[in-house]
């Protein structure tokens, strides 16, 4: 039988990733995610390395830009890029509870 994650395990990672899955997807990902997770387990076979961590591979110096006032994006354009907006505000759905109109 094909190795797979449990339904609950898939729902757990989907929840972590904030992704709604259909029933069909849950079944599919039970098998597919298991395959990928088995792959990444191979890291435990690697021996003899140093514990130094390399965050990113660049040979340049870390150079922070000066904390100066500069050009910014136009706030009006930023707001207008949101799917729902009103005046200078971005509109979001109800944060606590449920909206009545939906």
């Amino acid at each position, binding site marked *: 039988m094909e190795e797979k994650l449990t339904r609950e395990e*898939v729902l757990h*990672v*989907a929840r*972590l*990733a*904030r*992704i*709604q*899955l*259909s029933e069909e*997807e849950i079944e599919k*990902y039970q098998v*597919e*995610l298991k*395959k*990928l*997770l088995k*792959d*990444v387990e*191979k*890291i435990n076979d*690697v021996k003899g*390395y*140093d*514990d*130094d*961590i*390399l*965050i*990113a*591979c*660049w*040979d*340049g*110096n*870390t*150079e*922070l*830009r000066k904390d100066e006032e500069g050009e910014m*994006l*136009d706030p009006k*354009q*930023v707001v207008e*890029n*949101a*799917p*729902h907006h009103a005046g200078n505000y*971005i509109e*979001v*759905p*109800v*944060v*606590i*509870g*449920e*909206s009545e109109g*939906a």
Partner: protein
Amino acid sequence: MKYLNKSITEIHELLKNKTITPVDLVEEAFENIEKNKELNAYITLNKEEALKEAKELEGKEVDNLLFGLPIAVKDNIITKGLRTTCGSHILENFVPIYNATVVEKIKAKHMIIIGKTNMDEFAMGSSSRTSYFGAPRNPWNKDKICGGSSGGSAATIAARDVLFAIGSDTGGSIRQPASYTGIVGMKPTYGRISRYGLVAFASSLDQMGPMTKNVYENAVLLNALVGKDEKDLTSARREEEDFTRFIGKDIKGMKIAVPNFLMGDIVSKEVKEKIKDTIQLLEKSGATVDYVDIKYLENAMTLYQIIAMGEASSNLARFDGIRYGFQAENIKNIEEMYLETRGQGFGEEVKRRIMVGSYLLSGENAKVYYNKALSIRDDMRKEFKKVFEKYDLIIGPTTVTTAYDLTDPMDDPRKSFMDDVLVIPVNMAGLPGMNIPVGFDNKHMPIGMQIIGNSFEEAKIYQLGSFIEKSLNLELTPGGEK
């Protein structure tokens, strides 16, 4: 009369002596794209604006080699006022309000953006088949993939629609499609080009680069793209250099290493033979070529899976349906909005990678997987550096096979990683790497070789690349009309 199949220097002369204008070039580019429509290389065309810009250039001094030339830009690079989808439904209608730094740079050279090229969704894939807009097709055989994720950029260059394209490469996404389509694709050193405005996939690996029909034009475009940018902390401050400066120079005495891993059993016989032929050519020309072992290469794919999926899960958290892009409808509260927007907005491959990435970074797992991968990556990079103490360059095949059928199954979630197994190590070590075509298989599909250099030694890669290009003198236009 056609001009876009000529060399950049010829076109430059024609522009200078006013035989042609940028409008002629832009019109020709759109005729080519129309003729090659079934390649599906573009997600969005920029016709009206491109023609307007071309007209504005008339009468201006032709002040650099790239002046007035059309260029295609991968659709994960932000273009102000021009739709940028990343090949995804979630950004299907996203029109950015600023330009990526590379876009500002090509505009400063008076290049003209012709359109946004097709790609795997959020650059996640190896065949461009995860694009929400359908897969691009390989100009050498339209039933084959053109690789990915920069598949559209590769296709439009191979088809000779335009001279220049920009791609991005997180785990081989410039070099691998370049190999499958018989073009030159360079992933520069991490930090060479500012990533500002490149929609982030795996920030510690992502790098943009030029895709062109030949080595010289590639180096000329790279000249225009590089430089320190205050908007990207990881962009490197380097002295200005001309990447074309070693082109045409002899390779006598050059020391070249071939990692045994890159010539192992995973590589098809035909590809291996072609690489061996090229090695012989180099030896005959006075270079020394040695086979070497580089520790951890066989682990690179695992490291990549952990680092790339982990960073992707974090980077793609920004697609929440609030500030831009798609938002699901008929929702009750903000939590449901996140879930539905992302559930409906992302495609299969992206969801899979975000979920695995979220798992890898959650709680204690971050130490078990991600931190460990970063540690081994550091060691792997040091192993590469040891090789460069003795050798000028590293070479090997770019891909294990030539381009496969568009209809090949997509049901194995590991397939997209396996396709890139030879190109991934370069990203892990932050090194520059380039694909150069070295021949064809028995179905006349291109075979590519990658040339890997030490950090910031792109000029040396171009030197060897141009030598091979000139020596082999392959007919690299599909259909054969040069």
